[in-house]
């Protein structure tokens, strides 16, 4: 491949990097603007919006509410997802393809349809809109991601380790708890962080299954509909920094863990 092409392609890459970062950077910049009026240019700067946000009881409680929902739904997804992955990986049985198809179904259903289906189902089961309904919907929606990540890791587990444990007298459950599960830890941690972020960022399911108390994305949405303000930028910036930091940390952490268990 010639040089010119290569330079051109690298320009395309960096242009794409700009494209994905610039809108977010601009949003962060506006959160420091000393005026109620959203837009550019920014002539004077302030921290006022942040102090306002951290003093706002509604924003803080919404934030806590979102975190609790994310943690609870992730706990459910991880247990269920790991269980399904252990069943599906490396086993051949009648109906396996059907179960696999059903397992990934929630990840493929377009957002609005999934939200509507969950809402109708929750109503049928008598679950009132609110925290329980959101936790349940997020948990079901995130299971496929756990299954895929855990299955990928499980497929690299040397079969001989399990056999050795069984030869030494471990029953299947002990072999699972002491060999398979520790080996899966990096995948499970990675999947957990991914689920936490998915749940924390989810709008459409939280919106249709929520009661009167909004989650953070629902709150931002509601505020946006009644008008833009740098206060929203400040809230969004806090959410952005938090998710990005958690994401980067998880990426590094799981990679290190994977290296350790393999090396």
């Amino acid at each position, binding site marked *: *491949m010639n040089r010119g*092409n*290569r330079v051109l*392609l690298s320009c*395309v*890459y960096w242009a*794409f990097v700009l494209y*994905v970062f*610039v809108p*977010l950077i*601009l*949003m962060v910049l*506006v959160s420091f603007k000393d005026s109620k*009026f*959203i*837009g550019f240019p920014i002539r004077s700067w302030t921290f006022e919006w942040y102090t306002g946000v951290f003093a706002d009881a509604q924003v803080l409680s919404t934030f806590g509410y979102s975190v609790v929902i994310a943690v609870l739904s992730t706990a459910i997804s991880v247990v*269920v997802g790991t*269980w*399904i992955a252990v069943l599906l990986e490396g086993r051949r*049985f009648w109906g396996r393809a059907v*179960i696999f198809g*059903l*397992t990934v179904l*929630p990840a493929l*259903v*377009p*957002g*609005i*349809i*999934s939200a*509507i*289906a969950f809402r*109708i*189902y929750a*109503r049928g089961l008598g679950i009132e809109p609110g925290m329980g309904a959101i936790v349940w919907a997020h948990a*079901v929606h995130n299971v496929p991601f756990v299954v895929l990540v855990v299955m990928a890791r499980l497929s690299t587990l040397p079969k001989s380790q399990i056999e050795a444990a069984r030869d030494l007298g471990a*029953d*299947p459950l*002990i072999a699972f708890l002491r060999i398979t599960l520790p080996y899966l830890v990096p995948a499970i941690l990675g999947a957990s962080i991914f689920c936490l972020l998915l749940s*924390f*960022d*989810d*709008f*459409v399911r939280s*919106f*249709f299954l929520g009661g009167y108390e909004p989650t953070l*994305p629902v709150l*931002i949405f509601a505020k*946006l509909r009644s008008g*833009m303000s740098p206060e*929203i*930028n400040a809230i*969004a910036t806090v*959410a*952005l920094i938090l*998710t*990005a930091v958690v*994401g*980067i940390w998880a*990426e590094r952490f799981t990679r290190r863990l994977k290296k350790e268990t393999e090396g």
Partner: protein
Amino acid sequence: MSYDAASARNERAASTLRQADRTFWGRLVNWSPYRAFAGLVAASPRRQFLILALFPILWVLTQHLGPMIQMVGVSFTDAYPVAAGTEQHLTLDNYARFFGDSIFWMPFFRTLFFAATFTFCTLILTYPVAYYLARHVSRKNQMLMLLLLLIPFWVGEIVRTYAIMILLGNTGAVNLLLRSIGLIDRPIPFMYTSFSMGMGIVYLTALYMLLPLYSALEKLPKSYNEAAADLGAGAWTRFRRVTLPLTIEGISSGCTLVFLIATGFYATPVLLGGPSTTVFAETIAGFFHVAGDEWPTGAAFATIMFVSALIVTVVFQRLMSALRKGDVK
């Protein structure tokens, strides 16, 4: 790792194992309820499998399939939730309503058209990026440069939609830039059009296209291109006859994913679109804002949308795999 270090590590592992046996695991194995349970499980491989399989099967049937089935079921009824003292009847009216009024089917076709267009835009935008990463970057930098692109995608849908609003607004960065270099006198109204909506959706879905493309391109051996070059193929011919056909699988799965996601967006069209760009998600949502008897219609519309999206993706995938087979021949 040196031999000494390895043996020291083994020693350490063995000693922790012995300790553990004396403590938690040893006690667990000798604990009588556990023994009873283990005896029950270990009785036969068949029983083991049943115990392992029962919960996942129940889960996917009731939690993954259940909501979809009930949604379809409700779409054929005249009332849901059923009010006390009234009866629920089976009906096709909800589907008839869709075809009866352009206010319903216009957003539907608009959604399919928009989703297809935006998917195509995403493909055109991300293919060169994936190509560059997979073919021209050293292995070590590949992960770093991919990670760089992943960071913004951890940020939620609403926050990123808002970022696009700030970028494209009348006093937004793009208008400011255009005005300061003298291209325009008054701001271009980007917002609340199909353009701003497209910008938002492409922005939100780019990664789901990039990753399948990247993994398809990364698997493609460089030697294929070299062989084609040795046979006298120019850069464009090599791309069109070798690279493109062999990455069709990645293109196909990326497009499917992005199309399905794009049809399901609700908040982004609400915030970035205008009255002339109402998508079907907004139409469906409208039936759920009011409590009561509009739900079956909403369920019917959601079913129409889901089935259509499935048909489009299946046809598309068939087409792509036919294309691939045709090229391999």
